[in-house]
């Protein structure tokens, strides 16, 4: 297993190199200028040029790339042009709300999705099944910002039980942190639970028709045990893939949701970096997201083997 993990990790290196090259040129070739943004709309060309000089943006692109790339190889991703802090620190500062939000959203997604999927599969073709399917279609069709705004108006404005926006860091109050993330987590969790429910239902239906389930029932195992211990464990693999993917997507930044709820996470960092043309941050975040994806995929492979002993690392 150790060899497998090492091999997977080594294969990441060329991917990251490619992404680094892409990220750099993509953001530098996009029109727009961080100096112009920083100085505001009234800035004169001379003034912009002066600041570009100070920020080292007047250096030819290949040389900028060389500097950045050599730095990146040594773990130095540069400094944010606007926040004047190292890029990894900027990302790290935004990781807490995004990570916590992702955990909560995935927990809600699994809770709703798996339960709905199992219930629908075990009561196939009944009204319960129909209801579950209708519910999942709803989840797939509603945009997260719309659901988010409705939650804000209901729980934040009408009932006033939750804060409408913002984030309270864990270090200040963990209850505050959870309260501030509850609505966005519900919005995201509900929406991504739709896919999980569908996957669980399909996979459960397949497993429930297999011989070992009949055998388990014949042995006199209680129905609850048949479903939750025998069938679900066999049906869960594709669901893990879906959940793992949504984990990676969520961690990579929830641009829309973080914007609606004004949560200072990675998503908001990305969107501001793009709007301000904060090149080092855009590049850094792209690398971070790719690295996350790769590691989460490796992590999922390991989970497969733990859940299903038939899978061997090769």
């Amino acid at each position, binding site marked *: 297993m150790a060899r497998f993990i090492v091999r997977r990790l080594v294969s990441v290196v060329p991917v990251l190199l490619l992404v680094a090259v892409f990220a750099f040129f993509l953001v530098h070739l996009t029109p727009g200028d961080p100096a112009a943004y920083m100085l*505001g709309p009234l800035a*004169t060309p001379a003034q912009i040029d002066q600041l570009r000089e100070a920020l080292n943006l007047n250096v030819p692109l290949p040389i900028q790339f060389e500097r950045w790339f050599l730095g990146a190889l040594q773990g130095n991703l540069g400094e944010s042009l*606007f926040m004047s802090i190292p890029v990894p620190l900027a990302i790290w500062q935004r990781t807490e709300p995004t990570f916590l939000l992702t955990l909560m959203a995935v927990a809600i997604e699994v809770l709703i999705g798996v339960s709905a999927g199992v219930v629908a599969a075990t009561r196939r073709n009944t009204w319960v099944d129909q209801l579950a399917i209708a519910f999942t279609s709803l989840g797939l069709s509603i945009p997260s910002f719309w659901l988010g705004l409705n939650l804000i108006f209901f729980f934040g404005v009408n009932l006033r039980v939750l804060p409408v926006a913002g984030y309270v860091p864990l270090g200040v109050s963990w209850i505050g942190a959870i309260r501030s993330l509850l609505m966005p987590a519900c919005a995201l969790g509900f929406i991504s639970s739709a896919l999980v429910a569908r996957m669980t239902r399909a996979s459960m239906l397949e497993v429930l028709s297999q011989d070992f389930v009949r055998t388990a029932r014949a042995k006199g195992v209680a129905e609850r045990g048949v479903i939750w211990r025998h069938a679900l464990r066999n049906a869960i693999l594709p669901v893990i893939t879906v959940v793992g993917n949504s984990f990676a997507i969520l961690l990579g930044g929830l641009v829309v949701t973080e914007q609606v709820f004004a949560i200072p996470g990675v998503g908001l960092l990305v969107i501001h970096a793009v709007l301000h043309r904060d090149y080092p941050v855009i590049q850094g975040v792209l690398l971070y997201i790719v690295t996350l994806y790769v590691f989460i995929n490796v992590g999922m492979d390991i989970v497969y083997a733990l859940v299903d002993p038939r899978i061997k690392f090769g």
Partner: protein
Amino acid sequence: MVDSKVPRRRLLRTGLFLGAGAALGGGWMTGPEKTAGLLPTAAAASMTPVKGGTLKVAQVGDPPTLDIMASTADVVTNDTQAIFEGFFALDANGNAQPVLATGAQWSNGNLTLTLPLRTNVLFHNGAQMTAADAAASFQRWLRLAPLGQSAASAVKEVSAPDSHTLVVQLSRPLGLLPVYLASANAMAAVMPRSILEKYGDKPVQEYIGTGPYMFKEWKPDAYLRLVRWDKYAPVRQAASGYAGQRIAYVDQVTIFPVPDVNTRLAGMKSGEYDLAFSVPPDQYAQAKATPTLRVAFLKPSEWFIFNLNKKGRMFTDLKMRQAFRKALDHRPIMEAAFGPQEFWSIASPTIGYLAYQDDKTGADVFNHQDIPGAKELLKQANYNGQPLVWLTTKNYDYMYKGALVAKSQLEAAGFKVDLQVMDWATLVQRRGQPDVYDVFQTGMGGAPAIPPAMDAFVVDKWPGWWSNPKKDEAMQKFEGSVSLADRKAAWSEVQRLFYEDAVAIKVGDFYDYFIMQNKVQGFTAVDFPPYWNIWLGS
């Protein structure tokens, strides 16, 4: 502030970034006077100022820097003008009133300006403000701020003959210098010399000023916190506009970047924020219908401009520019761009506000649609059907909607229009290239009194590139005169040339508004509403 307003106000943008009126000067009055008609009677209750509490502000986004001198972005001015102070500030009539200077003394045929400085002013680091700090700050302002740069060519020398006097020697008359120095936007803020030496012309990262609030903490995208500076020494004069006595009633001000406009409004309704910026007109009805909230209008605020590229391509020809003007009917454009009539006006051709309002000059051509006339001019100019490239953006809803309506009107007159939609950052870059476009649109604010000569369209280097020696002459008179009457006459001449040259199209004036909780008292409805003098009533 011209054009810079865009980032703040019409933001909705991301719901991102940053109004004419007959009531001249009305925009400078404080909330209660100005919005009397909109105030629920209960709000008039506690009018006695009280100290304490936290003012929570919902802002449209994070500032790119907290160095007030280094950026013209609205959000920077809004968030930091309580930390820093300059030599003067503008009062409700747009005149410069003392803040750190005690007055402005002209001598030597108006070529020497002496600024005596107050002696009891402490920086937030405890050090006393001296003329050395003031001189270093003044010099930096000449290098960094657009107004400073435009003043720089007239400034021969800045000296500090003693610890509390600053003397500015000019090479040509610049009667407007105190007004330049009073601008809140890209303010000539006095900062400690040691800090300026440390950061040079880069934005400073130690935010030490002399204002009623001091910088406490900034967590990007989360909040910016200011706290009362207990050793603040206010001037004695009564408060007016940005000028006069500044009192820090609330203990602290917390500014939250809330980029989504719906969330800003929701936070106002739920009571989480006390004051919100940049709520678009389509949310006005909701805000007005919420009994806990009240609204303050800023009239006049800005005017909508279609700026023509006079350096390259088709609009180098005056006839083409006149044809463009004759093709337009302003009412449907303003309706599409700004919605309810409460938010805009096409009543006046004026390109100046407050003391400089001129409702007559240009009235003969302002908003006179004449399609056959436009067609005739196109024929005379030998227009060959080359597409008119119009740069627009959806980052500011009004710009896109206005451009869309204008496009159909222009096509009816025979223009071919290529409307190119892009993000604001790209537009700002492209509008600097005279060979790639013909028109772009933006908002112009406060011209020319707040502060003067920030009207980008009169500067020949600004995109659009209006060059005319007569205009330069009028601008020289405008800037040089110490007398308001002379300046007023000079500005009317600029307005006459603006219409004669068909420099750009003033489509109409539009207004801004602010939403606050009823308990927020002492609010000043100006372009950059200050946080001082606000208290939280019951």
